[in-house]
């Protein structure tokens, strides 16, 4: 696939940049404008989580293919404090930062695949994918 975009997330302008780049990539992959917005919203949530909890990190966007299905992959990594209780963090409305608590569970709802890998004191990696619906 080749196309891979690495974006550093260290300020709130980077959140906007990441979701705009994600939308552009989703358009390249052939997603509808509604799905492009869904992907952009998911990126916005996880990028903000990086800022809130780890202060800085990175988001990698790429096109992926599974058979004849095309999709986008979004990997968010940080070397922040990690998530002590992933089950709770995935509960809607649960937040340790006075947020809405919609970040992780919200992004999960928006995507087809969602995986959290986190080690306390080491950091967090979130991998999420969305696949284009077969017509």
């Amino acid at each position, binding site marked *: 696939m080749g196309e891979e975009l690495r974006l550093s997330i260290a300020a*709130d*302008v980077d*959140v*906007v940049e990441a*979701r*705009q780049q994600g*939308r552009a990539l989703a358009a390249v992959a052939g997603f509808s*404008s*509604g799905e*492009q*917005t*869904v992907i*952009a*919203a998911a990126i*916005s*949530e996880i990028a*903000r989580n990086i800022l809130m909890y780890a202060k800085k990190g990175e988001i990698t966007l790429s096109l992926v293919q599974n058979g004849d299905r095309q999709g986008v992959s979004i990997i968010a990594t940080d070397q922040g404090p990690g998530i002590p209780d992933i089950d709770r963090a995935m509960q*809607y409305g649960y937040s340790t930062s006075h*947020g*809405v608590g*919609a*970040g992780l*569970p*919200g992004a999960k*709802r*928006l995507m087809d695949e969602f995986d959290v890998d986190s080690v306390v004191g080491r950091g967090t990696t979130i991998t999420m994918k969305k696949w284009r619906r077969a017509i």
Partner: protein
Amino acid sequence: MPIARRRQRRSAIQSALTDADLSHLREALIAQVGRSRCRGVIVDVTALDVMDSFAVRTLRDIAHMARLRGAETVIVGIQPDVAFAMVQLGLTLKGVATVLDLEEGLAFLNRRTEERFLETKPKRPSERG
């Protein structure tokens, strides 16, 4: 600035906003409600690319704070794609008025401020008496 009534404040969001921009908008609008003694606030989000949890919370805060300051808020111009993503994210603007576009927004506020006036009107004779 095309404000139909002096007692309404219109805020058109021109492009994608950062979290800091949204917080600034909230602060500025609430200050303006007091300064211009306006009774209605219209926030036009037609140009907003995404409404995520932070944006939704900030809009809700604006509406609730404005109400505490005596002004009604209406959000206009949520795009179909944005509404689609909001619903999937599980985000609601509960307690906040939303209408299709600016024209509807103005009509809504005119009605609401009129209603408020009528609500307070019957009390007046007894106050005098």
